[in-house]
């Protein structure tokens, strides 16, 4: 039986080259102000189903992203990598590269923790 192996942490280069992808189960709509509102379907666990018989439990949980969050969400199209998102943010909002990098990386980490996005990491090419 193979021993359980911890994944090696990503290098900075790998992190910046990785591509964020939106969770397809989540729907996104625009508010009147142009911000993105995410509609997250509720989990269909047994206790949610039981509760919903007695109480009103919304079918969707809504999260409204702010202007910058909406901008980053729009960039997560499965083709744009993290480095390109940082560059786009710098250009659009006239931020310093480090400012944009710190906030984008933290924000993508939060979205990934909440399972709103996935991160595709490019494998290193075999030397052979």
């Amino acid at each position, binding site marked *: 039986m193979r021993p359980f192996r911890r994944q090696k942490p990503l290098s900075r280069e790998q992190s910046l080259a990785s591509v964020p992808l939106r969770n397809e189960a989540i729907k996104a709509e625009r508010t009147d102000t142009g911000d993105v509102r995410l509609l997250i379907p509720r989990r269909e666990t047994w206790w949610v189903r039981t509760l919903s018989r007695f109480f009103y439990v919304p079918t969707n949980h809504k999260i409204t992203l702010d202007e910058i969050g909406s901008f980053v969400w729009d960039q997560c199209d499965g083709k744009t990598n993290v480095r390109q998102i940082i560059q786009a943010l710098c250009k659009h909002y006239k931020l310093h590269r*480090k400012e944009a990098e710190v906030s984008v990386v933290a924000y993508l980490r939060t979205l990934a923790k909440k399972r709103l996005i996935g991160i595709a990491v490019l494998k290193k090419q075999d030397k052979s």
Partner: protein
Amino acid sequence: MEGYEQWSRLGWQGICMDVPATWCPGRLEGDYANGYLRVEDEEAVCLEVRWETAGRRVPPASKLVDKYLKQLRKKTRRSSRDADVVRDMAIRRLNHLDHEAFTWNGEFAAHSVLAVCSETHRVVHVRVFFQEGKTRKSLARKIFGSLTTAPDDGQTEWSAFGFAFRLPSAWRLEESGLRTGCLRFLFADDNDQLEVVRFSLAGMLLRATPFTRWFRETFRKALKKYRFDLTTTEYRDCPAVRCEGVMRSMARPLGLFRRKKRLTALVWHDAATDKIHVVRLVTTTVDDPQLEAVAASITSD
């Protein structure tokens, strides 16, 4: 030079040098006496600076290099690879400092310069890292040649993340906040205080709030102790707010024993760079010109 066409100035705790524009500080520790600064590009750590205050008698740079190399060899003794060291390199533009430049190529590879500043009694060690086989000698020499370790004409230059300003060297950094969207520096000189702040994303900050009200709310704590007036004006062709105030006090015998602290502040919104700059001075001096001098020296990308 190695594709570095644009350069920017990096200045921290009185140590300044030119670095490629794509490099920016990653870690800042310590104070004026002892500290550490790390500079990175998108991929790796490129440069490190360490400084410490020497005692009364500072040994020459060559002896300090001897000591440093001895310590480094002890640390890397277990490594299978012997390090190549090239010494006795001088940087012409650093002739005003006692210095020695050397290259260490072992477990890590770096071009280094160790400089002793007799004016500030500090020893400064700068390392430019390179990958094996891809030496950055000319880049390192340019960086080392631009190094300054002492105030210029009594003024210290502070420059990081595209934000630069100069102020008299008597001011010491008390606090700094380097967060996304807000770079904040708080300096102290005896009982006086000087705060320099740059806010990014100014358009977003001021979208729903008028400029004057934004200043009042953002600096509510700092303004609490003062009776102040705000006047809208222009500064550098940008909308600006000037604040002048005096510390609130209980009944006091007409300031005989203690001068009241005065608050002056200048805030301006530069739409071209989408930034708001704030300079706030607390001092007992009436009509102190330092605020205007610091504000005039500010440059921001």
